[in-house]
């Protein structure tokens, strides 16, 4: 683990330089252990690091660093919370998944095989981040990995089910985005008028269930 300042009010805690299940467990552990502490304003978990943002009028770097060690230590023997599994109904392809053909071409698979492999896998929410309630999903079969669009779309419809590099994701709101859209769900990941939590949270398990058009 390395801890270094990212700014005059934050520390970046890194557990590994690559994506590993161990680093993910530490990210989950630290995010939970630091939540709600006085002077800690925000926690930004990612694949193998957590950014800890604090109020510089109440806390300073050395103090927060000591707190991170202390909280990790005391959380070290706590069993991880039981993972929830969330099933997401998806209509694949067509206007719901305008990039399905491109993903098939890139991966050398038939569109039906892309759908079958995408829906057969079990995913883990590595973290929720980037933009509002966006879940980064680990567990995409490597045969389906497809680079992002070279120029992002200005408008991705809400509920779009997407592939970005080696990750899967679902767009919780209409937004710009560069991931490949292969389907769409009617499940609402986040309601801007409601208070979180969003539907998908860090460490949840996710399965995609193909449904026919009209069942959305």
């Amino acid at each position, binding site marked *: 683990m390395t801890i270094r300042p990212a700014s005059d009010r934050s520390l970046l805690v890194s557990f590994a330089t690559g994506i590993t299940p161990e680093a993910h467990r530490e990210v989950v552990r630290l995010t939970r252990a630091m939540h709600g502490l006085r002077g800690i*304003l925000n926690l930004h978990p990612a694949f193998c690091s*957590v950014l800890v943002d604090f109020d510089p009028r109440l806390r300073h770097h050395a103090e927060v660093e000591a707190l991170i060690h202390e909280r990790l230590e005391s959380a070290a023997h706590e069993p991880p919370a039981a993972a929830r599994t969330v099933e997401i109904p998806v209509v694949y392809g067509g206007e719901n998944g305008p990039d399905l053909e491109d993903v098939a071409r890139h991966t050398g698979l038939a569109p039906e095989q892309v759908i079958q492999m995408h829906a057969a896998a079990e995913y883990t929410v590595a973290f929720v981040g980037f933009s*509002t309630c966006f879940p980064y999903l680990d567990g995409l079969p490597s045969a389906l990995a497809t680079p992002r669009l070279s120029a992002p779309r200005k408008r991705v419809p809400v509920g779009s089910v997407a592939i970005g590099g080696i990750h899967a994701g679902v767009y919780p709101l209409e*937004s710009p985005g560069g991931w490949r859209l292969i389907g769409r769900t009617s499940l609402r990941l986040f309601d801007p008028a409601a208070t979180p939590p969003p539907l998908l949270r860090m460490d949840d398990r996710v399965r995609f269930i193909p449904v026919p058009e009209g069942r959305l």
Partner: protein
Amino acid sequence: MQDLGRFGWAHFGISASGAADALALRAGNLLVGNAENAAALEMTLIGGAFEFEAAAVIALTGSDFGAGLPHWTAVEIPAGHVVRCGPTRSGARCYMAVRGGIAVPKVMGSASVHVMTGVGGRPLRAGDTLPIGDAAVRRARGPLEPLTSAGPVRVTPGPQSDAFASELYAAPYTVSEESNRMGLRLRGLAIPSPAGSMLSEGVPLGAIQVPPDGQPIVLFVEHQTTGGYPKPANVISADFWRLGQLRPRDQVTFECITIDQALDLLRAQERWLYSLL
């Protein structure tokens, strides 16, 4: 509508939002006798006409939008009066704090509108009516001598500063028209990107990230919570307010200081603000 932001939700991808010039919002609230976090109006580049159905005490802070009223002090507005704010005559943002606060509902603990996602509502439109609250906590006071935004914007080294030479500090950058509350896009000397790619990691307010085209982006109040571009530097807390006053086509230069120096500057700034109490 802004306050100081919505904290504690970054692990759901929701950045704090809040006033772009939080110092001006805090000062406005203290001038009218509110708690510093009360909801107030943020105007960007151009204002609007605000009719007061009842008498009120307001403070205009930040940039001068030509309202014809004294700024940085509490001002009594008679019932029926219309305060007209026009296009800016100085920086990007003007704040109107009202004694008692503006009583809009809070979403996730904050009245701040996250303009890009709609969390917390939407920007005001002509015809909207806003209730004035009764949450004043002390008497109104003022004036306060405003800070001036001069010289380079100060930064501390970012997490990938070792991968960069000193290009960021070599020449002025121009604020692009594409800038918004998510980020200030700068145009100028291209900064060579370090070799290789990096994994997305958490990014704080004021992070300066360098995408492959070498044109830096300063992450602002509605910033993404994680990002995969390397970051040579991060703007210091005491200079966040100056970012909120930058307009498109303004020029900005950067100077690197230590974290201890940054915290000294922040303490001096807090002393200036609390001279009002």
